[in-house]
């Protein structure tokens, strides 16, 4: 699909819109349908679309695999971290009321932050799933994709020594 000029041009203009829409869904979840999960799926699909059209390798250069893996964890850490933060500020676990000047303000801050955590984890897990499945297929075709992973492996190996 990497050679279809029409697809490339259309996608180039569409992908920013998709990502922007994801952000809208993310932060508008308090007022209408939507929220972190839906936003994450849309954001992930935007990146997956990019990978479908411009190739997995190009995408991996923009968003290296290791960053994706870290980000999946960071969303969960953010969410659970808010829980710990409310403990520290004297509330129960995940009690957002203690996070702001008034309970309602605290609820707003808490909901926004945890929805962000949900969005980050979901978006990057979606991309990670796509990388895993698409990357696996490329191995069968014996694509030069293997090289990229080799580098990563050697980094990992030196880590472990």
């Amino acid at each position, binding site marked *: 699909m990497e050679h279809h000029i029409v697809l490339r041009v259309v996608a180039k203009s569409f992908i920013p819109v998709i990502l922007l829409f994801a952000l809208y869904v993310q932060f508008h979840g308090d007022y209408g349908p939507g929220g972190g999960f839906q936003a994450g799926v849309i954001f992930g*699909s935007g990146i997956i679309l990019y990978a479908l059209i411009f190739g997995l390798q190009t995408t991996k250069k923009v968003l290296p695999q290791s960053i994706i893996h870290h980000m999946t964890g960071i969303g969960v850490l953010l969410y659970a971290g808010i829980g710990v933060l409310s403990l520290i500020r004297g509330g129960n676990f995940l009690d957002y009321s203690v996070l702001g000047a008034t309970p309602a303000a605290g609820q707003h801050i808490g909901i926004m932050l945890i929805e962000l955590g949900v969005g980050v984890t979901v978006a990057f897990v979606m991309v990670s799933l796509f990388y895993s499945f*698409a990357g696996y297929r490329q*191995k069968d075709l*014996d694509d030069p994709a*293997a090289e990229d992973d080799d580098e990563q492996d050697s980094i990992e190996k030196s880590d472990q020594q």
Partner: protein
Amino acid sequence: MEALVDLALLALLTVLAIGIVRLRSLFGAAMLFGIYSLLCALIFVVLDAVDVAFTEAAVGAGISTILILSTLSITGARLEVKHSRPLIPFLITAAIGAALIYASLDMPLVGDPNAPANLHVAPEYIEGTRTEVQIPNVVTAVLASYRGYDTLGEVTVIFTAGVGVLCLLSRRRPRRKTTRRGS
């Protein structure tokens, strides 16, 4: 009107489900499943669950179908092997179904505002969202705050799936070595 739409959509859903069972082409089954999910999303809209509809459309018709399709393309599986349709599983499912129909005799009717499910805790959520959380979307308030702990679990589940797939599908060293020598 609402009820008629609901009726028609559910009937269509049944047809689709039976189509999926009978179809031997796996590709066809996967596509039908995508449509099935989209129909489900429509039903959720009719039943006032807009957030759920949004998610079902994105996940069922989107992510799940894409994942099934990419699995099909990796494995190259096309047709389901023909097999006899044995009687015993049919009897088991029929028995469970009959038990469920029996169970439904004492259920409150769909849409009954006085059903226990709609009386006990639910009104408090709507009132509490107005006064304590102070955001318009009650579903977001319940999801993120009242039952925020469930949502933490949900994020953990999706994280687990990410870790699992990564672990299963990341290349293993020895095998790649051999493919490289081969190329």
